């Protein structure tokens, strides 16, 4: 089939060449295959296939789509974090020693680690979080285009699946997550690796563009009556900015990957060394996407911190309008700084100076935000829950990362530490607290809303300490190493003075991994003891925005009656005015979209398309292409795409829930983490 041979299966390679590096590769592949087998057996044993298909995979409900995004993200996080630990291990033993990994295998590891963390961990995590929360905060029943939402999910999942397939079939790229040509051109990387990177990234970039269109339309057109833009919770504002960035910034990536593909497959000369190609065009296109991408990831986390800090301080957010303006400024400025990723390109001092200054400018709105969050906490009744701890640790750590960013924004300094471990330390210092801590905080915060029970605070805090201490132990040494001259992506060292720093970093990486393990333990433990942790009334944290005003988990239509909004912190207002949990006067029929198998069909077609392109199996390319577009066209002939939930059903369900809420005892904030918290908050008027 195409260029695919039995020798490309990783187990065959391990068998034929049983060295440690191949062994690790084979083991990783085995874990993947074993995982798939276990899931298949469990689903069959518990007869879960029907539920999986009808309740989840074909669902277009934004809440389920959101949860599926986050599941994808967790699975990919597990792989990428193990890869990170493995690389730290390799480097910590590879001082005047080849270590356990071959350079080629090491190259694959840093390429998959970066690509997964950005495209298949962080992106699905923020997209899932926005999907779950944003429509409920707006008082909407769904996003504007529910099916498109599911299609975006499946395109992203197809990209993730391709990266996973590369673990077993063939090799992944060794060109890093940025895949700079000419190294990734056909001349220097003739194998299938770069093609895996190209097609997985292309699929997810198309998915993200469609997501951006969908979210922006939802926020502009789908808000509840009275929910003006300046009454929206800040998470919605940051979602809006992220969506706008997705709309504008994904196209350069799509184009860059397609051009690279044309260079590789058809002998074009976009980025080649000869015949008029220009590899610096790639760097420009990639970072024209890549820098806004940083803010695509970080802004939703800023939104989460705003919600978490305000809720757990028991105060309305400080400086709401300044936060909105700061978010918008960051979104605009993010398009003016891409060149700082390659100050060393040779474009002259003036150009570098302009981009350096623009880069430092972004520090200003970010600083405004930090002060707003701090001032929100001042004189608040602060509760140090897991979500809040992650938010506070974010504030401290992110500021350090921001300062090193301002240092790097100086072109002369950048020339000295360009591509060193100093840079690696800097961007991990931004995205771990800025994105991952934010998403974990959001996960702790909204989990009870999504599943109807609280997560264990004890395990959550254990995880928090591992993540925090682990972060400092892993990445502070990398700053020092970078200043000592250690370059990134190095498989073997020849300077004995690096050894101690690298060993500390490895211990830190183990702690980070324990942080992840504790998150898993927390999930399992909380599921097992869910009956003492249930919050059916839906408001476990004395929440302030509309998503807390419905049951936990919410009905598929979110709101029995679309709420009317009269100001900021809509739900807090209702509670203070005694208007929460009041029976509505009338109920109406609710129209919800029917499930559709179009999205999974497109997803499977996309996996087939990507795989076939990687391995040059042209008949499968044609078949997959036809499958994808037939599904789209066939869908447009379906006229019955919605079903009606009658008003009587809505009334029965909603009144039953209201009766249950009225019987619930109210919980004072001190008892938030006890079984008395059933999701009805005590209101202090």
């Amino acid at each position, binding site marked *: 089939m195409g260029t695919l041979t039995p020798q490309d299966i990783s187990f065959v390679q391990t068998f034929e060449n049983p060295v440690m590096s191949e062994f690790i590769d084979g083991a990783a592949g085995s874990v993947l295959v074993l995982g798939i087998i276990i899931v298949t057996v469990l689903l069959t044993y518990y007869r879960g296939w029907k539920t999986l298909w009808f309740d989840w995979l074909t669902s277009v409900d934004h809440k389920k789509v959101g949860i599926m995004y986050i599941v994808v993200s967790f699975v990919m996080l597990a792989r990428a974090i193990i890869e990170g630990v493995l690389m730290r291990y390799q480097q910590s033993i590879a001082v005047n020693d080849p270590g356990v990994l071959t350079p080629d295998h090491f190259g694959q590891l840093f390429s998959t680690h970066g690509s997964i963390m950005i495209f298949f961990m962080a992106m699905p995590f923020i997209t899932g979080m926005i999907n779950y929360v944003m429509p409920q905060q707006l008082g909407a029943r769904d996003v504007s285009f529910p099916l498109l939402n599911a299609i975006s999910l499946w395109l992203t999942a197809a990209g993730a699946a391709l990266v996973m397939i590369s673990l077993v079939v063939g090799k992944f790229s060794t060109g890093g997550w940025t895949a700079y040509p000419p190294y990734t051109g056909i001349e220097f990387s003739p194998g299938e690796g770069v093609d895996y990177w190209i097609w997985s990234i292309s699929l997810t970039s198309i998915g993200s563009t469609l997501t951006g269109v969908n979210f922006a339309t939802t926020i502009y057109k789908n808000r509840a009556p009275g929910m003006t833009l300046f009454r929206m919770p800040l998470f919605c504002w940051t979602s809006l900015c992220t969506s706008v960035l997705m709309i504008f910034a994904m196209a350069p990536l799509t184009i860059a990957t397609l051009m690279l593909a044309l260079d590789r497959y058809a002998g074009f000369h976009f980025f080649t060394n000869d*015949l*008029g*190609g220009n590899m610096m065009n790639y760097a420009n296109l990639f970072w024209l996407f890549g820098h806004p991408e940083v803010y695509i990831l970080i802004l939703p986390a800023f939104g989460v911190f705003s919600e978490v800090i305000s809720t757990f301080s028991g105060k309305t957010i400080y400086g709401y309008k300044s936060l909105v303006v700061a978010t918008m400024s960051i979104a605009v400025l993010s398009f003016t700084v891409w060149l700082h990723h390659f100050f060393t390109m040779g474009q002259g001092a003036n150009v570098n100076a302009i981009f350096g200054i623009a880069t430092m400018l972004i520090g200003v709105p970010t600083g405004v935000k930090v002060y707003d969050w701090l001032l929100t906490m001042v004189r608040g009744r602060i509760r140090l829950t897991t979500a809040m701890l992650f938010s506070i640790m974010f504030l401290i750590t992110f500021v350090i990362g921001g300062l090193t960013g301002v240092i790097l924004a100086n072109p002369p300094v950048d020339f000295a530490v360009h591509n060193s471990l100093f840079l690696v330390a800097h961007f991990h210092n931004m995205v771990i607290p800025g994105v991952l801590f934010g998403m974990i905080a959001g996960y702790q915060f909204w989990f009870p809303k999504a599943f109807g029970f609280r997560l264990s605070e004890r395990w959550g805090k254990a995880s928090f300490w591992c993540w925090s201490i682990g972060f400092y132990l892993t990445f502070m040494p990398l700053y020092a190493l970078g200043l000592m001259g250690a370059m990134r992506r190095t498989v073997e060292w020849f300077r004995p003075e690096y050894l101690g720093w690298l060993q500390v970093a490895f211990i830190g990486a183990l702690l980070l991994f324990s942080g992840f393990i504790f998150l898993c333990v927390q999930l399992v433990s909380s599921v097992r003891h869910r009956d003492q942790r249930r919050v059916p009334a839906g408001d476990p944290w004395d929440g302030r925005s509309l998503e807390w005003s419905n049951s936990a988990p919410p009905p598929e239509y979110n709101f029995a009656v679309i709420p009317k909004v009269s100001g900021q912190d809509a739900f807090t207002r209702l509670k203070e005015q005694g208007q929460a949990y009041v029976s509505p006067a009338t109920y109406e029929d609710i129209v919800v979209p029917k499930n559709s198998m179009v999205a999974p069909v497109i997803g499977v077609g996309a996996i087939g398309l990507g795989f076939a392109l990687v391995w040059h199996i042209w008949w499968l390319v044609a078949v997959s292409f036809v499958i994808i577009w037939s599904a789209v066209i066939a869908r447009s002939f379906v*006229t019955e795409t919605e079903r009606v939930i009658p008003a009587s059903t809505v009334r029965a369900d909603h009144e039953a829930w209201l009766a249950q809420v009225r019987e619930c005892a109210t919980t004072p904030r001190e008892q938030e983490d006890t079984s008395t918290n059933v999701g009805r908050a005590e209101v202090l008027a």
Partner: protein
Amino acid sequence: MKRQPVLHPGLNLGSADEYSHAQSEPVIFGFWVFLMADLVLFAILFATYASMSVQGQAGGPSPTDVFDLPSAFIETMLLLSSSITFGMASLALKYKADRLHLVFWLVLTFCLGAGFIAMEVRDFWIMTQQGAVPQRSGFLSAFYMLVATHGIHVTAGLCWMIVMLVQLWLLGRTTEVKLRLMRLALFWHMLDIVWVCIFTFVYLFGVAL
């Protein structure tokens, strides 16, 4: 007379079909947003072409050697006329209760679009016969990428038109069909604007410089 509120930029159905008009708000708005993302894609291709058209010739053919300006002019006329005929189709969608006018204008638009594609393919064929293949230089790579991406968009628009003709025949003038035709119209006009830019910046500038 009561003025209909304009809920979205684009073809206004308000006076003829208020129900569809109200339904169209998020759909048309969302499509505008999508078109914006698509235009960014073309902007990137134009930027790439600008950086490679002169710098990337690598001793190969220059724009003056390979561009057939009369042919590009005929293509421009075909595409511009197709925008007019689609405009007529939009008016028929709003004001004529029958399907015949609408179908007539759509078929005419399709023929003009297909003529454009046929001319473009012919141009490409002649260029490759002269040795001006995309593998020859960065300039030609960027040229084919930009112009063919537009061509693929037009082809997608033609396929979409066929689907819409079938739907008009099978489903009639339902709200969904109307909304799809409104989006197709926006798509078609956008491609026209992109072509005007291609004709100006690629063909006219290329031959003038």
